[in-house]
């Protein structure tokens, strides 16, 4: 299958005091189209850092990361924004919905950035909200939603532009068991139906049980990379 992310000899260091903390150390990975993979490991293992670099929100200190053929470390801020806008979807642990917008407006936001016509935006937003089962909440604001509903809005917002890759950072951390399973089933369904690639950063067993590929990180290094046969 076609590779959409290539991570080569990636090193990421953060300045700490007079020295540096190495968050990622010589990581080599590749993600193919349609993958449902997870970066698994304890806190501080480098999961979120790797996800941020793949998401072009951060840059490597050394090595190279190619996302859809674009070298993340060499992109300008505008090119990185364009890559995120067109190809990537993000799902965050604490949902990160825009609080002043309604559910509809939150999901519509990425399409506004893509400058799509109003009629197409409306059609896509309603269709995506239907996938996640929130058509009855279009006018609600995030404050009026439950945690599970907020995360479903976040999934809809990530999926509405049909991205090639969705990066999900601890998407179930704030959810109860029932909501977690519902969310994961929704994402799995979208992965199967739309062939969207999903990369998770997680240490939640519920998420791990859904993954098709598990990449274990420890102290910034890949210690295991295994496919799961279901």
């Amino acid at each position: 299958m076609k590779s959409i992310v290539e991570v080569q000899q990636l090193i990421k260091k953060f300045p700490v005091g007079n020295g540096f903390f190495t968050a990622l150390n010589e990581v080599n990975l590749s993600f193919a189209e349609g993958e449902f993979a997870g970066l698994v490991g304890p806190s501080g293992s480098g999961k979120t850092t790797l996800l941020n670099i793949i998401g072009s929100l951060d840059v490597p200190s050394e090595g190279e990361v190619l996302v859809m053929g674009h070298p993340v470390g060499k992109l300008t801020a505008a090119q990185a924004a364009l890559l995120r806008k067109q190809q990537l979807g993000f799902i965050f642990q604490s949902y990160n919905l825009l609080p002043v917008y309604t559910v509809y407006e939150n999901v519509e936001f990425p399409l506004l950035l893509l400058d799509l016509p109003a009629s197409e935006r409306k059609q896509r937003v309603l269709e995506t909200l239907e996938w996640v089962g929130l058509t009855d909440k279009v006018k609600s604001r995030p404050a009026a939603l439950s945690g599970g509903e907020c995360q479903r809005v976040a999934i809809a917002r990530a999926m509405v532009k049909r991205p090639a890759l969705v990066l999900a950072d601890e998407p179930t951390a704030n959810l109860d068991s029932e909501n977690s399973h519902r969310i994961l089933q929704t994402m799995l369904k979208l992965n199967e139906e739309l062939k969207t690639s999903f990369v998770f950063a997680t240490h939640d067993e519920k998420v791990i049980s859904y993954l098709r590929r598990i990449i274990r990180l420890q102290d910034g290094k890949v210690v295991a990379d295994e496919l799961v046969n279901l």
Partner: protein
Amino acid sequence: MLLFKTALQSLIGNGLKTWLTVFVLSLAIVMIIIMQGILHGWSRQAIDDAQRWELADGQYWCGGYDPWDPFSLDSATASIPEPLARQVEQGLLEPVLITQATVYPEGRMQGVMLRGIRPGQQLLEIPTAVLRGDSMGPVPVVVGAFMARQLKVKLNDEMILRWRDKNGAFEAVDIRIAGVFKTAVPSIDNGVLWIGLENLQAMTMRQGEANILVKSEAAEVIEVEGWTFKTVDKLMEATLLLVKTKSAGTSVFYVIFLLLAMLAIFDTQTLAIFRRQREIGTMVALGMTRGQVVKHFTIEGSLYALLAIVVGAVWGTPLIWYLSAVGISFPMEAAEFGVPMADVMYAAVTPGLVLGTVLFVFVVTAIVSYLPARKIATMNPTEAIRGKIL
């Protein structure tokens, strides 16, 4: 359009806070327009009243005449020269003779400025027709309402007037208050007694003489030796300067209003950077460039000004119309301030004033919104997403 839409959505989503800020800003806009309008109105009314009551279309001053120096009066009196005398005969110029005098209302002694003017004059609004009187009784004089109160006299009251003639000899005569007029021009009211010109000329032995000649619009300005023509602008210089000073003083109030509004916006926007950093990080993650985020917040702040203009127009227009048409009463005496000031002041609001104010507020709001928004450019999106920076 995208940024406008997203900024507008944010603004509406902010709910009550938005409307409170918008109201304060609209208050600033309307108050600036009203205050400036009233000052413009005052300035316009001051010129208009001064022209109608005292200056007409300008004045010729004799020699070293100085209205602020009573000791110059005797030396600043002269016969009206031929070319000007012809215009006086035609009613195009109105001569005024001025001298110091003392009155004794009910035995009290009070210094006054005695001004002689022709009873039949039509140029100024001073009710001089009553100065004709008859040759037998006390000499008729007219005074302004403020002066009447100062002297504690009323219509038809009589008192003694004492003055010195051209040769320095003291003379006295009985005078009668033949008229009391109300004016917004203190310089013809405060401390002034108006008397028939011929009477005063005879009393001071200055037949055919005057200190000033008030020019009508129809009269041509002529260069005459010993007389200097002063335009209305020149004569109003001090008053307009005072209005201008008042305007500067009053601007302190609307600067305070504006500062309050700007503080509200600056506070809202600065707080937004702190409070909404996760939101900003999310916007960046979704594909907004930093420039777009800065524009988004600048537009969002500027929209406060736009909304305030609309809200201000809704509640401010009827108020401004009322102040322009009906005016606002000031329970104080103009003469006490020494400048022309009517009992009722009208706001003179011009399109230029409205546009200028609105534009000024809009630009200031945009700048105030931009400054905290610029901070966004320094944000690290990965930290912002987690709400961990600043």
